[in-house]
């Protein structure tokens, strides 16, 4: 199916319901070898549910998934062997060394002997833990655990690497190291599915991004394609002190302003022409007695795209 140049991952019309609640509703996309695909959405958007179905961890109510041409379901050992899964949790045994953890998970994928040793060494070196492999995982910092968590997903040379928010809760230095590592996987020909709610990570890493909200894939494309969907709009960031709610309500009624979101310390607007609404913002602030500390027209990014598509901010 995949062969040369074909998609490594194909999923179509994925659906999952929990009682009355629809967690995933018709999600579908493809990822080619060497491509890094970002699934971008706020917490609770359906990212983890989607990748759980893609990896055969969760029974799906509808839809199809193939990895490397093999259908994925809970008992699909062939397809699972082609997937490297890096869960959001640190899925390692604290009481074992990183090397012992990797040896155990490697054996589950059929690695043994010299080959297993080589792969452990490789995986630890890729994530920068080559000299800490004999230390207990429990003694690692949060960032080191995250890196070891990624190493466990790499051991068996998967064709598709699925990373579920791998930078949650890590310091900036570790985050940088993780992003550098993941960027390298794509360059080596691995298909990568990367879920995050950090817009800057998706922008930096991903060749294509799928925007997911309330279980639906609301947009998909390269960063340039997605930004183009917002058209000639501008994003305006207003720093304020005072009653931002009243100011936001007033701005929503103003011409040229399409969307208004309140954030800590200010308001973000999506405007048809940013520079022309600056006066409107200042006048509205004066009218409701809110002090404006600063106004900035910023370049459109995926955050703005998300705001435009869903009417809410990524970190809501």
């Amino acid at each position: 199916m995949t062969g040369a140049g074909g998609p490594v991952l194909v999923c179509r019309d994925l659906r999952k319901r929990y009682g009355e609640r629809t967690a995933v509703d018709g999600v579908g996309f493809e990822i080619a070898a060497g491509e890094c695909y970002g699934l971008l959405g706020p917490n609770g958007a359906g990212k983890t549910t989607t990748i759980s179905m893609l990896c055969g961890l969760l029974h799906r109510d509808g839809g199809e998934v193939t990895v490397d041409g093999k259908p994925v379901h809970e008992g699909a050992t062939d397809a699972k062997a082609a997937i490297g899964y890096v869960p959001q949790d640190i899925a390692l045994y604290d009481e074992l060394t990183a090397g012992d953890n990797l040896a155990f998970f490697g054996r589950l994928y059929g690695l043994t002997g010299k080959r297993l040793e080589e792969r452990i060494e490789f995986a630890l070196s890729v994530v920068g833990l080559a000299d800490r492999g004999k230390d207990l995982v429990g003694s690692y910092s949060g960032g080191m655990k995250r890196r070891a968590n990624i190493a466990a997903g790499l051991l068996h040379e998967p064709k598709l690497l699925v990373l579920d928010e791998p930078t949650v809760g890590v310091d900036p230095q570790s985050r940088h190291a993780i992003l550098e590592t993941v960027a390298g996987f794509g360059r080596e020909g691995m298909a990568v599915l990367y879920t995050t709610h950090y817009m800057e990570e998706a922008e930096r890493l991903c060749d294509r991004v799928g925007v997911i909200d309330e279980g639906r894939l609301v947009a998909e494309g390269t960063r340039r394609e997605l930004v183009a969907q917002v058209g000639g709009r501008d994003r305006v960031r207003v720093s304020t002190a005072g009653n931002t709610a009243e100011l936001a309500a007033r701005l929503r009624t103003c011409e040229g302003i399409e969307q208004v979101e309140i954030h800590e310390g200010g308001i973000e607007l999506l405007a048809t022409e940013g520079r022309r609404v600056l006066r409107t913002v200042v006048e509205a602030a004066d009218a409701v007695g809110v002090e404006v500390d600063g106004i900035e027209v910023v370049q459109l990014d995926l955050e703005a795209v998300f705001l435009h598509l869903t009417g809410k901010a990524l970190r809501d």
Partner: protein
Amino acid sequence: MRTVLLIARHDLRRRLRDRTAIVTAFIAPLVMAAIVGFAFGRSSGGGFLRVAIADEDRTAASAGAIDAVIANAGLGKIVVLAKVADEREARAQFQSGAAGGAVVVHRGFGGLFNGHSPGGVLVEAITSDRRTYAQQVAQSVVRGIYGVVSSNALAVRTAVGNGTVTPAEVDTIGAAMRAQPPPMGIVDDGMAPKQGLLGYFGPSMAIVFLFLGIGAGARSFLGERDTGTLARLKAAPIGMGRVVAGKISAVLLLALMSIVVVWIATTVVFGASWGPAPAVLALSVATVLAFGGIALFLTVMSRTPQQSDATMAIVAFVLALLGGNFFPPGSLPPLLQRLALATPNGWALQGFGNLALDRGGFAEIVPALGILLLIGAVIGGAALTRLRGLVEAA
């Protein structure tokens, strides 16, 4: 199979790195068995509930009365009534502590059956207030022997009075009474009572901690679900059935190792006797399966590892109390003895008691084996069904 063994070995290795598991599985039951066994052993001056009986009358009537008492005493499994050669030996055993008490049937006792009353004490209890259990047993034996006299003497006197038998035939009647095979044999196989006691309290304590140990192992399903390692196992190209089989195998194997280590240690270090090895092993396996099923059921019914721990501890000690783990066998009131058999502990203890104290074999533990395996199959089966849901949701 290779995957099952891989996961089982991995889980065992993790469990054995946990000091709490070592203490629960091996050290605590050994220490408790030794303490409880020695404590009960010393309470009767070293001759735990062993009462020596000397027959100085040496008539068919006295021998028949003694055998009848022994046969019908309804004794607990650790009470030993041992016939000795004479009064001198009975007193010597009492003095040395080899017997907690002694009973001497004096010369002239047989005359009571003929209506003769030679006077004086004909059946004497030699006891000490410091040996309360043995004192009670010895006094019961005396009352029992007099009870035999009362009932039989009346019958003999009636028979002599109405001419059915002649006085000369009384000895023959006594011999016939003795010839009746008693339903329970006299325990006098040279085994020190303490050996049997440790052979009983060893498995008894092992069972209490076994449950906690199995519970901690079963709880690892919840722990692995919460940490995400269960999801990682699900993502691997192995069937979840193998994961479950591997993890459960590790839990049960550690539990079995726990019993076997306590068995070997109490036998080698303390000289305990648990009974014939094949039967002990079979009963141990059945016990592990029964408790494994219950522990797994309690685990999968819990939402968190903490809830599982608390439930396990409560159930373990309630079952131990009801089942009689903390009491000498046969010492519970009749109602509680019946209630004990509503618990796996009661059945396991009955089986181990039969092996250690009655010197029984496979035949004596068949009911216990059957019930324990049934408990394991029914409750364990229900737990496995629910476990499937837990694993799917991970």
